[in-house]
């Protein structure tokens, strides 16, 4: 039985040596050519098609009243918005944000701003932004409106804020660490 199995396997192996192919002939084919690009390779459509991004920005730091007195307070901002880049390759775009700004003990403000920014998607990837904001809310227990003009360079924001009232405008300085986030692929 065992010898028969070995003999069968040997016969099969010999047959296999002859086999292993249908022996079909190779058809004639044109020689392969290489198609090459002409000139420098542009990069536009391979960049992410998304040019409109969600953004969020928080900030904390110091808010000072420009009265000549030592009048500083802790401040905190929480903002959401959109970045609309000027085309796929551009890192520049319109920065639109709105949210809440708090100054300890004296201000609760709604903030809305539109400005110009240089930014890419990701955490802390905003290089530069200049954003004028409209503000409205309670300052020293009175409803007031005004303007806050922010200059953001990397993680630092410096802003001048003017709030209007019946008697005289209040000038303040907003100096904070800021943490912007822009959604989308880098």
């Amino acid at each position, binding site marked *: 039985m065992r010898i028969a199995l070995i003999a069968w*396997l040997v*016969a*099969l192996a010999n*047959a*296999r040596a*002859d*086999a*292993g*192919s*249908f*022996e*079909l*002939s190779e*058809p*004639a*084919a*044109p020689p*392969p*050519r*290489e*198609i*090459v*690009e*002409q*000139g420098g*390779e*542009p*990069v*536009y*459509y*391979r*960049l*992410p*098609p998304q*040019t409109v991004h969600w953004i969020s920005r928080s900030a904390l730091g110091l808010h000072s009243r420009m009265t000549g007195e030592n009048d500083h307070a802790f401040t905190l901002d929480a903002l959401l918005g959109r970045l*609309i*880049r*000027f*085309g*796929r*390759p*551009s890192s520049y775009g*319109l920065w639109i944000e709105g949210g809440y700004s708090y100054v300890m003990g004296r201000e609760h403000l709604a903030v809305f701003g539109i400005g110009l920014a240089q930014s890419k998607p990701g955490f802390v990837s905003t290089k530069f932004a200049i954003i004028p904001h409209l503000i409205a809310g309670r300052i020293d227990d009175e409803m007031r409106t005004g303007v806050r003009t922010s200059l953001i360079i990397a993680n630092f924001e410096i802003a001048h804020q003017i709030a209007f009232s019946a008697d005289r405008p209040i000038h303040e300085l907003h100096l904070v660490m800021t943490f912007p986030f822009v959604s989308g*692929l*880098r």
Partner: protein
Amino acid sequence: MRALLALALVGCGPNLQTLASKRHYREAVCAANDGSGDDRAFVRRALTKDADPHIHVEVVRHDQLARALAGASSGERDRIAGRAQFVRVQLRTHVVPVDGLDASVDLVEPGGGSLGHPATWEQLAEVTGEKLPPKQTHSSYLHGGTLLRGAAAFFTLGLSLPFTTFRRRSYETDAPDEAYLMSAPLAHALRDATAYGGGCRAVPSRSTGHGLACTWYLAIDPADRQREVALSVSLAYRSARKTEGHCAVRETQTIKLGRIDALAQRTTKTFGPRMRALRDFTIE
């Protein structure tokens, strides 16, 4: 006004005609991927013209099948020939400047249903009526769990070891080639003859482009003699985005091959000893 504003906001890239005429296909593929149906059709046409895919279809004759199954009896050969007709499909393209090129073929009904079966072990064993060897089970300490436990021991200076048990994890592998030869010698011979199911290799090139040279073997049931069959050829041209992901433009073309019982004559008449350009079949 709104369109102008949108254009000003998003900017605009190079047009597709320029990209295609200068063979900037990586860009064109992504432009088409994100664009309209017309954009995709335009880029598909331009790429297919330059890649110029050539195709050849040949049915394996009874005597050729018999040669591959030299170890089988004539009864076994007839039985196998009655269960499957093997068809070799070959495809060649030029090298085009894209980041990837994939191709696949299938034998389909005019309605689109698949009739061709790739020459896998399972398919071949079904054709020959043989039993495939079972998969082999192995076990090893080389797995992620061991790595994590090792890392825990390292970072706790060995303190985690009294509470850690290193375990083997089992995994399955295909049986060795000899087991297939013992258990399913006819399927093994067919597997050899069909070049292990076939596939594609890259056409050698000096550039970073891609071209393909492919050979596939498909098995078709010859019993349904009156059934019409067609060859479906699909090509996918790929381009890598500069960030994550990729873009693709796909082209699928169908070549009518007539009835199954006349497949050998029809393919010999249509293709003969030469590969034919896929564009020749556009109207068929």
